[in-house]
């Protein structure tokens, strides 16, 4: 999962990059250790603000980001038939940019002085890497849009689960589940809340 986020952390002005499930569970969170050093640390399982100058713990931040995306999608559903895929919240102390992926979001928090436009392409590329990763693990079927993102294992270790862990989890899941990708109804671990399936309230007069 680090490979999905690594190129984003190379961009100037990034404070945090994360992959989160659409219901706000952090899958992988990388956070800049301090303003001075450009080094990123894995905070996926960190439940308190421990870094220098950090004012909110990563778990709360990603949960709030997912909740905001959910709110905007719900309200956006009243305006148009299609739902938004990219969300930008520019504020005085930072900018949040979220790109929707396969049942997950890729998000970055950037410095307020940096234009969010510069992140349109890197975020799309990160979502594409996420697609590819899930495809390689046999978890993604674009026709069904139902690939569930693997959840992190809650262990004592502070490090994020590696790609190998995900691969192992994918095999275990496929063994228990007879249907593979491309077949209908074969995704028992689909997250319960899928905003893209929310009913529209639009009258279609636009």
């Amino acid at each position, binding site marked *: 999962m680090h490979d999905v986020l690594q190129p984003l952390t190379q961009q100037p002005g990034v404070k945090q990059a994360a992959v989160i499930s659409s219901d706000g569970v952090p899958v992988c969170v990388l956070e800049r250790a301090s303003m001075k050093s450009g080094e990123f640390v894995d905070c996926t399982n960190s439940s308190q603000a421990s870094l220098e100058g950090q004012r909110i713990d990563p778990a709360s931040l990603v949960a709030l980001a997912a909740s905001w995306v959910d*709110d905007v999608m719900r*309200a956006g559903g009243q305006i148009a038939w299609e739902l938004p895929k*990219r969300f930008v*919240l520019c504020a005085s102390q930072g900018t949040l940019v979220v790109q929707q992926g396969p049942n997950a979001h890729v998000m970055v928090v950037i410095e307020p002085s940096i234009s969010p436009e510069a992140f349109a392409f890197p975020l799309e590329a990160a979502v594409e890497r996420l697609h590819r990763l899930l495809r390689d693990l046999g978890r993604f079927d674009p026709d069904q849009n139902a690939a569930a993102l693997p959840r992190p294992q809650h262990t004592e270790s502070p490090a994020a689960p590696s790609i190998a862990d995900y691969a192992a989890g994918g095999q275990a899941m496929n063994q228990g589940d007879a249907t593979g990708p491309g077949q209908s109804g074969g995704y028992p671990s689909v997250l319960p809340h899928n905003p893209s399936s929310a009913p529209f309230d639009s009258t279609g007069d636009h």
Partner: protein
Amino acid sequence: MRALARDGSTSNYVVLAKEYSALGEPPSVLKVCREGLELHPESAELQRLARRAKELHQEQRLHDLNLELESAPRAALFRELCEIQLENGDSQHALEAAQRWRNQTDEPEAAYYVAAAHAEFFFDGRRSRDGLQAFQLAAESAKHLARDKRPLRLQFEIARRCGAWEDARIALARLLELMPGNPLLEARFRRVLSNCAHSKPLAKALSEVEKSGRFVDDEPEEAGNFDREALRPTLKRLAARTEVHVAFFLRGNTALVQGAHGPTADRTARAVREVLQASRSAARRMALGRAFEIRAEGSFGALVLKPGPLGTAAVWTSQIPKGEIEQLLEQLNGESPMESAA
């Protein structure tokens, strides 16, 4: 310099300041500009040069301070670093420096600067946790710095702005002990005392500020409290653009909509208000500060909201808005002056 001795005009001060800037001496530029501004306070050019010189001087000083702190960290350097960064509005760097200072020495003054940085975050973003942290750290440093007025001033300012009048009174009473007979403080104390009857507990007052996004002394954003006729031409120009589906202006409970009618206008305006409220609250809770632009983009086009001093301008377009649309949005929300209707 001789020309300036003969004639102390603005242009001669500007020439001398520019000569010093060419020599790479920002402190001298600043000195000349200050002297010139005493005689010609209205000079825009001298003001600009003074601002630029101050920025350059501070940049250089920050660089030197950071280098010196790496080799010989001490309180005076940390204090100056935090002061400069807070003065520049760079609260994030100030917080990091103050936390580094606090971790290294555990001095009560370091706690004050951590509190001051959190207070700046609170005044800007209205996040209750920042306000509470700032108040508690200021109280902690006030306990150790018995003769220092700064932590008490900070406590007073936080409590006053969120309407925790009892806490404001306590901080002010202690300030009066340090500055007995100060007429300004005494007048403030009487005013605060009269408000104590409807004081709220600090935690409740802070969470109310976070919820509403408004301090007690902020102007209320009431419905209909704006000139609709002045806004309508700009809103019509915005809606007339081919890529614009609907244009909105929201303030309080009132919404002006162009490009949609009847129930559709109501429904879309309600949706835009929901996006605005959710985004403002989310920005505060995520410690991102005050939201000033919200975008949702997809195959349906883009929904862009720009909250500003007058209200929120919003637009639903088929493409990501740029150029004139952005200018019109900024005119509507009061961030740039309104053009006269052509």
